């Protein structure tokens, strides 16, 4: 059974909103005391918290950034709304807008240091932020009321209706919150399944691949922070108008931990996870009251059990289970590849104007500390050709690729892309300028689908901005559909159409290599850098890869190929440059290179005097003169 995200959202919105909308009237219809305003209040509180958790899910689940200070953002929103209501007499709607925007701005400020570090450093910054925030709230008594908080917040009004969750007011506030929850849920969907969501997931899974595809890691993470903060601010504002009293105690470190728990427990990165997590954890805290002073112990134990039993969270683990049970033993087959279709004409195009070289390296040099890894390398890749860069392990080939793609800054020399010196440009900009690359140890976004991997490659080519994307204006949807068509064409090109919905990490290795090439092509590159694309491939796959590279060159794409697999270099390349110890030791056609004694020595070693030593030591004789290297050199 495979439930698409789209169906999940539609069903959840219809059934969930329907059920929740009916809930307050249950008692009236069925003549029972249920639900009392206690139960409704719990539902309300969970709905508000779920909005925070949805926001956190975007940050943690999509962008892979852990925030242990989210309660502070939530509290900031709550205080903005409360202070504006009490001091400025601002109403519900402007108050809420201010809460959302204000918190989003705070999120941007917090993002500045946060997105530049990872792991525990990020955790420390968010923890510190949360503690500073609470400290300020508590101590700035004249402004925030300190621990006594801000009481007497006037109930909000909307179109003349009292925004109260009480029955005599028609549960109006309940419906307001429900509306915002549904909105948040829908926005979560449109965001996560847009190019922005894909970019976030991409940066969390491989920073390098993201940069290589023109996705700015810093900007994407900042965006995730800001959006996540906006959700927290919204929830904070809603909380203020529910409780009509705020003080710092609802926004402390343990609350941040609870938000994170809800996210992880529900299933980070899943659509329904935040809802399930918020409901589970909040209800647990209510139900576990029966354990009195042992309740926190029971809470910890429950968490531990869930974390051990369901490492991907409740929804994530259930999805895995469903996927496993529903996995029909359908053989997915790779179609014939490379498979050219007219759709690809829009993606892979010859360079206009036919310059004499798409890429030219002049005196390129790279140093690590005292070590010169790349030493004064010259190279020119002519349009529509395959230029191979070879050399033994550690010769500096990958370093050259890394400089061209902007991952390393050269110490000296020029990198001319279409006659423009781009040396030192950062990698995301380099990608946007048309330099696409693959990685030696495939850097796929393993947890994303095969199709999404390719879609990330289109990121820098979209026209629609954030707002249009989130609201899904027709132009944005049309654009998305177009990119999707092109992505499918690229998958078809490498024979992976059947695998489009598979997790990329689950693909066989050979398929991963092909996917990486398809993804790089999505950039509509001027030059494609392939870093050992044949490593780990079977003979048959290498044959196909050779045809693919030749076909691309034929279609006018320029390719720089780093490879160990000599068969392949000889078969596809028009020109070969050989590096050893960072220096160019030979350049020419494959045939010239093949018989160059310097190349043979670099690859194979010369006749080692060690052989004689061994012979002496062993007292035997070894025919050193017969060593293959010598013969090779002699030929």
């Amino acid at each position, binding site marked *: 059974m495979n439930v698409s995200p789209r169906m999940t959202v539609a069903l959840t919105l219809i059934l969930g909103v329907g059920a929740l909308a009916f809930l307050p009237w249950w008692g009236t219809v069925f003549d029972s005391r249920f639900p009392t305003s206690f139960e409704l209040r719990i539902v309300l509180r969970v709905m508000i918290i779920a909005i925070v958790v949805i926001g956190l899910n975007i940050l*943690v689940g999509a962008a892979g950034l*852990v925030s242990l200070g989210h309660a502070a953002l939530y509290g900031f929103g709550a205080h903005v709304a409360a202070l504006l209501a009490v001091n400025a007499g601002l109403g519900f709607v402007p108050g809420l807008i201010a809460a959302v925007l204000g918190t989003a701005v705070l999120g941007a400020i917090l993002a500045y*240091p946060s997105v*530049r*570090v990872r*792991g*525990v*450093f990020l*955790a*420390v*910054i968010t*923890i*510190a*932020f949360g*503690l*500073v925030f609470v*400290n*300020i709230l*508590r*101590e700035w008594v004249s402004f925030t009321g300190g621990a006594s908080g801000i009481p007497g917040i006037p109930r909000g009004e909307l179109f003349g209706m009292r925004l109260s969750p009480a029955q005599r007011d028609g549960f109006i506030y309940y419906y307001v919150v429900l509306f915002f929850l549904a909105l948040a849920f829908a926005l979560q969907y449109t965001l996560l399944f847009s190019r922005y969501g894909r970019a976030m997931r991409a940066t969390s899974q491989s920073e*390098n691949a993201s940069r290589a595809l023109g996705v700015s890691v810093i900007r994407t993470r900042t965006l995730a922070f800001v959006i996540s903060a906006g959700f927290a601010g919204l929830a904070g504002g809603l909380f203020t108008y529910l409780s009509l009293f705020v003080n710092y105690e609802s926004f402390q*470190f343990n609350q941040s*931990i609870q938000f*994170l*728990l809800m996210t*992880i427990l529900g299933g*980070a990165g899943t659509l329904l996870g935040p809802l399930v997590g918020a409901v589970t954890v909040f209800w647990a805290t209510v139900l576990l009251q029966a354990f009195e*002073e*042992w*309740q*926190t*112990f029971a*809470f*910890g*134990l429950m*968490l*531990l059990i869930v*974390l*051990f039993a369901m*490492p991907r969270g409740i929804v994530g683990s259930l999805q895995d289970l469903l996927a496993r049970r529903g996995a029909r033993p359908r053989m997915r087959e790779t179609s014939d590849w490379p498979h050219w279709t007219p759709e690809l004409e829009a993606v892979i195009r010859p360079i206009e104007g036919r310059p004499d070289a798409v890429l030219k390296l002049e005196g390129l040099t790279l140093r690590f500390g005292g070590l010169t890894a790349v030493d004064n390398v010259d190279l020119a890749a002519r349009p529509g050709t395959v230029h191979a860069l070879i050399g033994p392990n550690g010769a500096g080939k*990958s370093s050259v690729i*890394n400089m061209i793609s902007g*991952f*390393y800054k050269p110490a000296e020399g020029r990198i001319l892309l279409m006659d423009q010196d781009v040396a030192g440009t950062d990698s995301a900009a380099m990608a946007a300028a048309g330099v696409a690359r693959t*990685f030696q140890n495939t850097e796929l976004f393993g947890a994303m689908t095969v199709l999404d991997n390719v879609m990330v490659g289109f990121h820098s080519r979209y026209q629609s901005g954030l707002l249009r994307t989130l609201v899904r204006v027709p132009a944005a949807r049309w654009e998305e559909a177009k990119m999707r068509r092109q992505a499918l064409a690229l998958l078809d090109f490498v024979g992976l159409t059947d695998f489009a919905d598979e997790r990329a990490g689950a693909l066989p290795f050979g398929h991963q290599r092909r996917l990486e090439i398809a993804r790089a092509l999505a950039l509509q590159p001027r030059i494609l850098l392939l870093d050992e694309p044949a490593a780990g491939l079977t003979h048959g796959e290498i044959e196909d890869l050779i045809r693919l590279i030749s076909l691309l060159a034929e279609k006018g794409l320029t390719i720089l190929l780093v490879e160990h697999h000599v068969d392949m270099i000889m078969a596809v390349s028009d020109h070969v440059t050989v590096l050893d110890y960072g220096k160019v030791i030979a350049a020419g056609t494959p045939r010239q290179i093949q018989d160059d004694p310097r190349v043979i020595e670099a690859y194979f070693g010369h006749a080692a005097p060690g052989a004689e030593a061994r012979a002496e030591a062993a007292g035997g004789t070894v025919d050193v003169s017969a060593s293959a290297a010598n013969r090779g050199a002699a030929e």
Partner: protein
Amino acid sequence: MGNNMQFLLSGLSIGGVYALVALGFSMMWSVARAANFTHGDIFMLGGVLTVAMFAAGLPLWAAAPLALVIAMVAAAAIERFLVRPFNKEANAIGWMLTTIAIGVMIESFATATYGPLPRPLPSPLAAEPIFVAGAGVFPQELLLPAVAVLAMLALYVFQRYTRTGQAIRAVATNRVAAGLMGIDADRITMFVFAAAGGLGALAGLLIAPVIQATTTMGLLIGLKSFMIAIISGITNPAGVVAVAIAFGVAERFIEGYLSTSARDAFGFTLMILVLLAFPQGIFGRKEVSKV
């Protein structure tokens, strides 16, 4: 000036606590690349167990070492059964939450059995203050920075001159290579967690006579010490101890010259700024990322 001396002495005391606890974080991080959030609770156990066993009639000379041993066993068990299985999956959030959950359980268990209130631990070194340049301090408090510096030196000597110590350094540098030397990296890691737990618990029982042992005393100290370890560049023990003590002193001077209420806001803002300036921590080394 008397007040400055007072702030310095008081700061040394709390700084010593931070230093001992942060040193544990540093040790655990070095061998396991893991931040163990139960460490604050191990610190608490050091104090609380000593008090509880002392109250149960055990003499102090027996209660204190016994508390240390229990805390060390607990720390080792946490490594074996919680950190190790989760660390393999490289799911940092997963086991960070796991250790948080265990921390909640430890604290809650302690509160339910020991009670929520602080309880005293008599110590001859905390009965009468001594006076230095017009400032008063309990000898017990000066014990803390002294023990912290000693622990750091002992750690240095241990790692430098003993076989196990060199094995710890080897594991910290490269687990695979350590295994190829015949070192059981898993056992070494567990040993380090136990040792770190011992230092944390030692801090807990040493400070107990001054601040009274409560079951909630681990949370903030643990959190702050962890952050201190991170901002000082967690793998350098001397740096961690120096920054921890400096942070403790800075806190007291902030309290003295600005206000008590500004202490945490200033302290934590300082931390954020330090991380902005030194993304790898003050004494941290930049880890080269390979493409």
